[in-house]
Every structure is written in C-alpha cells, then in structure tokens.
C-alpha cells in the first residue's frame, strides 16, 4: 500500500470533509457537537473570503476504504495573528482514517502544512489537543511541539452564541 496523494480540497470534497470531521469528533466523544453542514462548509471554504483552508489525502480507487471512500485523511487550517510574533498557522482539525494509519500520511500532511507556514512567513503553528489523547501528544512532542497550557498557563475560553447576544446588547 502506501500510495496516496495530498492535494488542496475542492468544493466536491465537502461531503468527505464533513464525514471525516464527524469521525474525528466521534473519536473525541463529541460527535453530537458537530452541527456544521455541507452547505456551510462550501460557503465558508470556497467563497471569496474563505474562513478555512483544507488539504485532503486521497488513495487510488483500487485502494479505497472498506466502505468505498478514496478521501481518507484531511487537515483543516487557517491563519491567525499573535501581536507579539505575527502570523501563525492554526491547525483546526487533523485526521487520517484508522485503516490508513501507519503509512506516513499524517507525517506528510504535517510536513505540507509546515511548508505552507514557513512559505507564508508564519512564526509558528498552533493547535489544541485533548490532554487524554496521549498518542497524539507523543506524536506532536516528537516533532518539537510544546504544551502552552502546561508551560505558560494559558487556558482556552469560550463564549457561546446565547451569551454573545447578551454581551452585544449591553
């Protein structure tokens, strides 16, 4: 095996992207949190001002997954800004289907993203990992990632739509 290509996602990929988002969310035991639709993914990723960028890993038809999929991995990312060091690449989702792991797809995807980060003069790549996800943490630490929550005490906070509405009307 091991034959695969990495390419920029196209509008036709939104169905596979959503499928893979849900698979990853299921692994994180958060599947019911995914409310995003294919329509939103299409508008938000392939319009005039995309909110995200996506790369997909594709295998040839004769290597398709058990259920018949050829798009078997993806990474969703966008650019953020740190007023201290400038542009950053933020990795929102990164996933390879279980049956296609161990062939170097994950490493190749990360390599491609890092090249993008370096080419666009980003100072770094940021992402979040669940602290119980030790396999992924090991994977990232082996590649030189540092845990900012642990080392510098940063905690990620969120305000949901309901509270946003309350705050914006004050």
């Amino acid at each position, binding site marked *: 095996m091991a034959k695969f290509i990495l390419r920029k996602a196209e509008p036709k990929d939104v169905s596979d992207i959503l499928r893979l988002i849900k698979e990853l969310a299921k692994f994180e035991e958060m599947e019911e949190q995914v409310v995003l639709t294919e329509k939103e993914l299409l508008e938000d990723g392939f319009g005039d001002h995309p909110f995200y960028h996506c790369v997909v890993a594709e295998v040839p038809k004769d290597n398709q997954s058990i259920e018949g999929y050829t798009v078997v991995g993806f990474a969703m990312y966008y650019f953020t800004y740190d007023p201290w060091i400038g542009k950053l690449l933020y990795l*929102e989702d990164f996933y390879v289907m279980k049956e296609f792991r161990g062939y170097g797809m994950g490493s*190749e995807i990360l390599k491609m993203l890092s090249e993008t980060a*370096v080419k666009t003069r980003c100072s770094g790549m940021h992402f979040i990992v669940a*602290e119980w996800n030790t396999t992924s943490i090991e994977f990232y630490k082996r590649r030189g*990632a540092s845990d900012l929550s642990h080392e510098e005490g940063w905690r*990620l906070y969120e305000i949901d739509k309901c509270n*946003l509405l309350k705050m*914006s009307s004050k």
Partner: protein
Amino acid sequence: MDFTIRAATLEDCKDISRMILELAEFEKVSDHVKITQRDLEQDGFSKNPFFHGIIAEVPEHLKSREGHTKVGYSLYFYMYSSWKGRAVYMEDLYVMPEFRGKGIGKALMAKVSQLGLAAGCTQLNFTVLDWNKSSLDFYLKQGCWDVTSELGYHCMRCEGEALQHLAQGEL
C-alpha cells in the same frame, strides 16, 4: 466616563503597538514582543488583513497622564470550528490601568461580539493566563467557560527550529 468604541485605522497602529507592549509587560513577557508598528500596519491594513482591531478613545480633556486619548484596544480575527463553523477569536483585550472600572473593557468585548455575530459566528474564543484572577472573574461574569479545564484541551505550539524540521520532513 465619556468614551467611544470604533474600528482601528492605520493611524492607530502607533498606539496599538504601545498598548501591546503595556499588556505584554503586565503578562511579564515584554521581551517576547517582536512585532513592530510597521508589521501591524502591513498585517492589519492591507488587502487581506490577518487581524482586525477596535479602539477605545476618550476626549482630549480626559486624556491619560502621558497625554494619550487611545486608552484601550482589542485585536480579533475570524476562525473556524470544524464542529460549529464560523467563530471569532479575540486575541488581545486591554484597557490602560487608569481607565479601568468604567465599562471600557466590557464595551470593547461587546463590540467584538456584535461584529462576530454580524459575520455569522456562533462563538467567541480567547485564552487567559491561569494566574490572571481579575480577568478570569471578568470573563466568567460575561458567561464564558473554561474549555481547557472542562474538556481538557491544551493549547500547543510548534515554532522556530521545530517548525523548520517539520517542513523538511525531519523528526
């Protein structure tokens, strides 16, 4: 107190840069700041900005001890949640110490929320340092919750040599 909240312009970059340094000093890491006024001008005010800014300004007769009328700011940008879609990330929120307690911070955050909602966002995300008790209290009062604490998500970073090695496919 009399103040206005408005979108930042190119001319505000000098004051934004000043206040970024003030905030970094408060967070005890001012030597980490590499971004200059010129970088802010290029990155925030060109055709495809990497961030947006809002400024809190007071009238001339209420200016700070050093004579500044721009007394608070917020930097934000749009991001994407693979679960919920469009979201807004508030990167910095700062009000000069002598102007605190007058609702300016709340007004800045309200503006970011309004802009986020108008752009179709369903959440506002940001990070806070775990020792920053007064900020933590302020945010919890606005209805925020601690994702790191409740879901165990840690913020990770890959930079410098590690990023270069990754780009070259080295482990």
